[in-house]
């Protein structure tokens, strides 16, 4: 056979097997995490693990509620801050900004997204934590260190901002000019058109962007870990410390492995995180796909 054809075939086979390997890695992670979680699940039932709030590995209590709630608090706060901000920024960029401004801001978003999380963490410790402790908490009459779910939420909000803006801008760009013209030609103002037509039409895409941001926020580890306080208790207010799931794994893995079931518990935490993020990614993918089909 011709050497060129052999090369061609070889290339096809090699790239196929490399693809297979990367898919296998994901499968192996799932299998590995599940297998390692089994000892914990044999010891306690799933419902207890997820709903109990006492975490004392030495006594054999593995209640995940503080970590689940910590993750939810931090994520929710970041969304409350970031979602309105992102929607309004994107609307401004697409509907009002000049081409020049848009073309300089969007690449900047990519730069922001590429900053290593640890830098956001440092910024959080140096700036956000003191701000929350010394400025925001006193306004509400609370005495707090500043290491809190609020600080985590603020840092996360800044981190998910670029990815959300980029996606929402893309979504808004797909809305046909004629649809806006239809609303404008009825005598609607630009703001009425944005509020009642553009945002309505863009809703599925915005939801997909938010869901994608949630999965990013859920998994973010180091920056949140640095500002959150990391106390395994269910937070009662935004100024309380929290302990998100990724921080739990990063802080404790490799230590105290002599404690029975501890590594199994951490593996279960990892599995939980994996399932949640996988689910959210799947949801946003489905929404975005449906959107592309419609367009």
């Amino acid at each position, binding site marked *: 056979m011709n050497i060129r054809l052999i090369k061609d075939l070889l290339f096809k086979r090699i790239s196929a097997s490399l693809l297979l390997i990367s898919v296998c890695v994901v499968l192996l992670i799932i299998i590995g995490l599940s297998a390692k979680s089994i000892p914990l699940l044999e010891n306690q039932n799933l419902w207890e693990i997820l709903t109990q709030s006492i975490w004392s590995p030495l006594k054999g209590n593995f209640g995940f509620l503080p970590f689940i709630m910590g993750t939810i608090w931090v994520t929710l706060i970041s969304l409350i801050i970031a979602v309105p901000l992102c929607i309004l920024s994107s609307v401004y960029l697409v509907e009002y900004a000049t081409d020049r401004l848009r073309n300089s801001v969007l690449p900047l978003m990519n730069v922001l997204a590429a900053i290593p999380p640890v830098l956001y963490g440092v910024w959080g410790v140096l700036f956000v934590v003191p701000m929350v402790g010394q400025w925001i908490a006193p306004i509400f009459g609370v005495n707090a260190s500043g290491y809190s779910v609020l600080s985590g939420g603020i840092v996360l909000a800044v981190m998910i901002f670029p990815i959300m803006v980029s996606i929402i801008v893309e979504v808004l760009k797909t809305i046909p000019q*004629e649809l806006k013209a*239809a609303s404008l030609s009825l*005598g609607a103002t630009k703001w009425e058109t944005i509020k009642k037509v553009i945002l309505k039409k863009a809703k599925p895409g915005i939801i997909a962007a938010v869901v994608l941001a949630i999965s990013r926020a859920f998994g973010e580890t180091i920056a949140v870990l640095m500002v959150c306080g990391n106390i395994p208790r269910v937070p009662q207010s935004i100024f309380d410390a929290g302990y998100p799931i990724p921080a739990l794994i990063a802080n404790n893995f490799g230590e105290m492995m002599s404690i029975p079931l501890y590594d199994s518990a951490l593996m279960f935490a990892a599995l939980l995180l994996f399932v949640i993020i996988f689910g959210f990614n799947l949801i946003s993918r489905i929404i975005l796909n449906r959107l592309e089909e419609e367009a």
Partner: protein
Amino acid sequence: MYAHPSIETKETQDIASSSTPHIQIKDLNVHIDGKHILKNINLSIPNNSITSIIGPSGCGKTTLLKTLNRLMDDSKGVEINGSVLVNGEDIYAKDAEVTHIRKKMGLLSQRPFPLPMSIYDNIAYGPRIHGQRNKKVLTEIVEKQLKNVGLWEEVKDRLDSSATSLSIGQQQRLCLARGLAVQPEIILGDESTSALDPISTQTIENLLVELKKDYTIVLVTHILRQARRVSDYIIFVYNGEIVEFGKTEDVLLNPKNEITQQYVKGFIS
């Protein structure tokens, strides 16, 4: 070269003087990204009749239509000089307020673009933004306008379903009804039937002919036969200039200008 047509010719004077025209265009020049798209347009559009703008692709006919309700403002790199008088008011004057200008003109675009809401809300959208909150009045408007475009019998049982569930011909009629609901005086159509099947096209054409007793209608079309079927007057635009303007039969059957002749006979398109 063809002669610069001007509003001062005897014939157009006759057209314009029938009554005070809704739309008068004076010395209009439009540049897009530095290109001269519309050149020295002077025009009076006759009331209560259908005027079709015809001409080859890219000659500026859609631009001409869109300058009438200031929709060109939204595009980037557009520079507009001159004046467009609607009921004697210059819509390009510095202090002109754009939303009430647009409200006077219903726009029917190339493809129907129903708003992302129910059939009912599509019609009620315009009256609502102009302050009509009374549910009973809104329902009356919806029914009246849907009847106006012959859509009522087809949709009266599903007013709450999404407007996108309608067929494309129905959607275009819905869009016409939506425009009529804000009580415009003028209807602008931008190749409004180009996406429709022959039967829907006929429905829309018949509607427009019916509506001209109450409205001044300006259509852009690239279909000569359509222009002949529906319009009373024809404006032939070539290279951004008005080459010929007159009664339909005059322009199509006895064009004065050589370029109009060539276009009408199909030598250029």
